[in-house]
């Protein structure tokens, strides 16, 4: 449905006789406030990341830096001196693999829970739900022991496995409710047409599931990309660190200097992939791909 503004005759019930559209003005004020409120910290980071050190610490605060107060120094340092590309690769590797694993393990489980009549189905669902309620910090203490016992420290697996496990319950629950609202007739029709189970899942169910996969995948990816505590503890070798840890450990030139510029630059570099990811998949997320398969 597209919104259509109907040309309505002025109703006698309208309270003000002036032609000032108060409702519209209020609406736009609210929108502007919301946008500024949510984007201001981000804009501030971007601004800080491109200001010279002098401009960052200047008093009064420089809101609109002149040309001589701008610099790309912080970004260049990030890659020249701090080897940030290594951390980006580490973060990407861990996040991508754990996301793919999460979807690859979670979706079949969700499909089975949605479509098959499994004895004890409610029990399984309850267990999955309980896992999501488990306090993160308690998991952490147990995991620490396991990682130590297995000698997995400074191994990508030490992050990939917990990230996958933590995201799995949500993936299963979301995908299950998505599969439940997929019309079963489509699968029956595919069977009658002669698709075997694998072909049906791959060629009929999967394409219709893409929007849900992308949505849950992005959630899992963001979690893995931003996770700090596990990454800090399980990865001690410099070459294995991920972006959040590396950014937190950025040092200034002296012990007492807070490196605002590099910190801001690393934040921007760390956020950019997420923004691009969401923008790129936005259409897929919004798109109702199942529309029109059955009477709608």
């Amino acid at each position: 449905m597209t919104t259509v503004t109907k040309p309505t005759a002025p109703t006698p019930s309208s309270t003000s006789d002036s032609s000032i559209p108060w409702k519209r003005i209020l609406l736009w004020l609210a929108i502007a406030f919301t946008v500024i409120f949510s984007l201001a910290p981000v804009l501030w980071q971007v601004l800080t990341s491109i200001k010279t050190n002098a401009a960052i610490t200047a008093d009064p605060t420089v809101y609109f830096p002149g040309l001589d107060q701008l610099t790309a120094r912080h970004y260049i340092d990030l890659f020249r001196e701090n080897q940030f590309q290594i951390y980006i690769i580490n973060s990407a590797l861990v996040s991508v693999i754990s996301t793919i694993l999460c979807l690859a393990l979670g979706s079949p489980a969700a499909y089975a829970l949605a479509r098959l009549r499994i004895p004890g189905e409610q029990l399984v669902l309850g267990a999955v739900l309980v896992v999501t309620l488990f306090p993160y910090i308690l998991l952490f203490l147990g995991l620490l022991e396991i990682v130590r016992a297995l000698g997995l420290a400074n191994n990508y697996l030490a992050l990939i496995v917990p990230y996958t496990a933590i995201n799995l319950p949500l993936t299963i629950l979301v995908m299950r409710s998505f599969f439940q609202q997929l019309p079963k007739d489509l699968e029956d029709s595919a069977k009658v047409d002669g698709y075997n189970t694998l072909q049906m899942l791959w060629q009929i169910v999967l394409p219709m599931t893409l929007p849900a996969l992308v949505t849950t995948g992005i959630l899992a990816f963001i979690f893995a990309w931003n996770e700090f505590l596990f990454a800090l503890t399980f990865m001690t070798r410099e070459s294995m660190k991920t972006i959040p840890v590396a950014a937190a450990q950025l040092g200034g030139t002296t012990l007492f200097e807070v490196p605002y510029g590099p910190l801001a630059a690393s934040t921007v570099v760390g956020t950019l992939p997420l923004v691009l990811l969401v923008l790129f998949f936005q259409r897929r997320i919004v798109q109702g791909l199942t529309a029109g398969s059955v009477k709608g």
Partner: protein
Amino acid sequence: MAKLELQNLTKAYSQKIVPVKDLSLSVEDGEFLTLVGPSGCGKSTILRMIAGLDQPTEGRVLIGGKDVNPLAPGDRNIAMVFQSYALYPHMSVQQNIASGLKLRNLATGDIQKRVQDASRVLGLDPLLDRRPAKLSGGQRQRVALARALVRNPDVFLLDEPLSNLDALLREQVRADLKQIFEDQQSPVVYVTHDQTEAMTLSSKVAVLSDGYLQQLGSPNEIYKTPANRFVASFIGSPQMNIIPLERVNNAVLLGDSKVDLPTNLPAKSSVIMGIRPEHLRLPREGDHQIVQGNVFLVENLGMSDLISLRVHGDDNLTLRALLPSDATWSRENLKLALPPESIHWFDTETEARLN
């Protein structure tokens, strides 16, 4: 092209839910069988068992004399049209129609020819590149039909294919369906809860209720000699007048009037009389069974008036009659004739037909 047989088919979902009970029937080549019955009487379940989407609890499904119970749906060479059409949303119309053929490894040229033929018959040529989301309900319905037709299956199964269309379109597509399937050799099993569809399309009708087969016969037989009270009231619109009556010797009293019973009825103290509204008429010379009453409702159906009559002598007894709209009659003391040959008699207990 193959005969379809159902032998003692039973489906039980649980002890209590048994939607299909001991159903046996057969559909020959070129026959069009309609399963008709109220919602929830097990029609879809029967169709799903024929398709192999559900396994029967007991009994067998045979296609061309071969027991297909162990076969998967895809190996039975059947085509099914679903009530929701079930078109694949991510494929174009062309791909939707061709999907079943591609899986059977037909030559590309052969597939194209079949798709073209079906698309021409159903007028889908301008739509072949569209996605289902961009089609109207009627167009989707035709795509679903085309997908079944190109398959050249041994048996066609259709589950309420018209129920999602609006009334006008439904009538049009019904006529199209009749023509299309008259050219087909394979048996067709068609499910509907709409008795008009059942009567107009089929060569054979199976009336179902409560999981049991109530009557199997041509549309004409079902209409003229309903096997029991359920069939009598379910088939025919407006509904048949059904009146339980006490017996007085060899007649029953319909208010003040006496209606003679046929001679061969078993001697029981009560009986159910049935007469269709369209068979009640204004008296002519020679009519001797006449009922009299006051009209309390007239519904104009265009071609005819559906009148409701309160019978003299029994205020709880009403009859509905269909009179031509050009006839003249008075609302008070209207006399209607009951032609003896159009009266149906049913047993009070078993509800089975008596005459």
